[in-house]
């Protein structure tokens, strides 16, 4: 079996991007290429100590001997779940996809009143009325700027070879943890897994509360804006008693957008830790 190994002690060189989803064989909309070479299998007919059913990531372009592609996770993050493995949320990401999301918002402006020394009514409607006026907002779709790396996901099909597994190693399973493996710490459940940044504290949790099973988490934004109200000249002095006309000037609007979901797709799996 030919296997391409992308062994990368990687320098994460970034450059301008497209929106992802490039066709197979291209560079991924500016996504760069992985300088992979076709090589013989790393260890033909090799065996390893991972239990049958273990799911793990590989920095390789195919699965090693005794493993098969785990397509159920393709385009998804893996979120630990002690209760509902294999539940998914969202549609899978395309290659290099930067997924945008949407918010709605109800907006309105309050126009303070001015008055003129004249009589209301008749045909000149050049001045607006005072009071609250609702408008139609348009919020630009955008992405949540969450960084990710894409790794091949494989599921172990062969039996373990009986050798020891490094203590503390995490593997994912569709069912209960194998004999001898430990359930991952409860605080991992319902959270997206992030590779530890340099200087970070291992196991630190942050962001929102853990996801409920299959939850598509939403968020909102505070918004502010301005509406410029130009003047409309009237041949009257200000004063009594034609009132209820809008004053000219810039008006500020503010509020909170409607809820939007980042739609980062995931699949829930049992996270188990080697003793």
């Amino acid at each position, binding site marked *: 079996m030919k296997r391409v190994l992308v062994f990368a002690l990687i320098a994460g060189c970034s450059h301008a991007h497209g929106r992802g989803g490039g066709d197979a064989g291209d560079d991924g909309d500016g996504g760069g290429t992985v300088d992979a070479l076709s090589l013989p299998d790393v260890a033909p007919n090799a065996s390893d100590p991972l239990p049958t059913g273990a799911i793990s990531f*590989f920095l390789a372009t195919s699965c090693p001997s005794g493993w098969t592609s785990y397509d159920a996770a393709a385009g998804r993050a893996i979120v630990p779940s002690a209760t509902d493995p294999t539940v998914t949320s969202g549609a899978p990401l395309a290659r290099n996809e930067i997924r945008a999301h949407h918010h709605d*918002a109800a907006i309105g402006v309050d126009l303070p009143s001015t008055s003129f020394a004249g009589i209301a009514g008749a045909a000149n409607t050049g001045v607006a009325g005072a009071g609250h006026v609702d408008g139609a907002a348009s*919020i630009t779709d955008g992405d949540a700027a969450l960084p990710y790396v894409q790794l091949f996901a494989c599921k172990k099909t062969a039996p373990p070879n009986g050798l020891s597994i490094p203590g503390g190693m995490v593997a994912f399973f569709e069912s209960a943890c194998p004999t001898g493996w430990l359930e991952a710490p409860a605080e991992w459940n319902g959270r997206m897994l992030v590779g530890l940044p340099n200087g970070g504290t*291992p196991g630190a949790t*942050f962001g929102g509360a853990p996801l409920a099973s299959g939850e598509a988490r939403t968020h909102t934004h505070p918004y502010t804006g301005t509406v410029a109200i130009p003047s409309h000249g009237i041949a009257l002095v200000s004063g009594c008693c034609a009132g209820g006309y809008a004053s000219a000037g810039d008006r500020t609007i503010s509020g909170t957008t409607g809820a939007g979901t980042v739609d980062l797709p995931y699949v829930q799996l049992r996270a188990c830790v080697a003793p």
Partner: protein
Amino acid sequence: MRGVGIALVVGLLAGAGPVEVANDGVPPGMVSFFATPACPAGWVPAEVASGRLVIAVNDPIAVGHTVGDALAPAEDRTHAHAIGGAISLPGKSISAADGNNDSGGASGSRTIAGTAGAAPSGLPFVQLTACVRSLQ
């Protein structure tokens, strides 16, 4: 700057035939999280996953590609959106000709410009040691 990165291959198997691996037999190139503060012997930090979520793929071309700028430790990344729109201000009639008193605001359609300010995704995270099985 956000972007899609290139995974630079700095180490590749050389030559043909089986390669000797460490005693545990774990396949080289396996990337795993660890419930430990450091990588075990035979493994090295998976720098490509540092500060990043891992998206599983079955597309060989996608492997190793990164999207976006890595997170700082415990960073709850925020984002913002531009906001626009329009408000139609109805006129209120008055018995007067147009003139020089500019205190009144003009009727008609007015545009809105603003920002839906920075906010996090609301997603929860845990940062874990990520290691890649090295070639030995």
